[in-house]
């Protein structure tokens, strides 16, 4: 079992956290994981992205030129990474911000209206969790339950409300896949 994911979007969209949660959950499940962010001033108004590797073996190179999965949270990110996805890979698209279709026909595409659902939940900030939920459900690289755990450990005591909201969002994303 192995997944190599690139998650990309806009600076404020909580991209890095999405990646951290996958990696954290992977770790909790005893897998080998590595997480690598883009960094530097490009974040300002540009795209932020991160790479996550989950593997049953030790992670050698943490650099992923061609991901198996892509979560594209906005248009510039899709433009940048769509061509790089491995044949047969998966692209999760934030339909709320990306109206265009996917050019690639050799990948699986999942469209998630992440912002719209987040809006429904009353907080735009959890759009990332909606998309993440869909990814988890689709890829099964980690269990949703472990992601919840990772979420709790990351946000910690005193953030119960936010954690609940995030879980809700994750579940809404999951629902898109498993109905």
């Amino acid at each position: 079992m192995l997944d190599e994911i690139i998650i990309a979007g806009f600076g404020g969209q909580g991209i890095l956290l999405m990646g951290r949660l996958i990696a954290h959950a992977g770790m909790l499940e005893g897998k080998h994981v590595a997480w690598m962010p883009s960094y530097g001033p490009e974040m300002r108004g540009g795209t932020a992205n991160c790479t996550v590797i989950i593997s049953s073996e030790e992670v050698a190179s943490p650099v992923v030129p061609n991901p198996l999965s892509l979560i594209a949270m906005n248009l510039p990110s899709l433009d940048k990474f769509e061509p790089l996805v491995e044949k047969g890979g998966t692209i999760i698209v934030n339909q709320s911000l990306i109206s265009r279709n996917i050019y690639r026909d050799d990948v699986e595409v999942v469209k998630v209206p992440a912002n719209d659902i987040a809006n429904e939940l009353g907080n735009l900030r959890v759009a990332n969790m909606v998309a993440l939920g869909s990814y988890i459900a689709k890829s099964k690289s980690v269990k949703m339950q472990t992601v919840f755990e990772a979420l709790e450990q990351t946000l910690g005591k005193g953030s119960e409300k936010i954690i609940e909201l995030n879980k809700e969002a994750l579940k809404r994303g999951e629902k898109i896949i498993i109905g």
Partner: protein
Amino acid sequence: MAKIIIDRERCKGCELCTLICPQKIIVMSKSFNKKSYHPAELMNPEKCTGCAFCAMTCPDVAIEVYK
């Protein structure tokens, strides 16, 4: 009569022009520009005095003023 032109693609949606305009006639668009910002838009152009406060304040030199 005065008028401002906002460069939709240069605008970063900081809202500073909306706050400074004495006429309160600049508002933020609901739509995104290419860089995923909500750009500012002139509402009620007829009320514009051409004072250029908005342009002076705009950090992205996105506003031109005509009088």
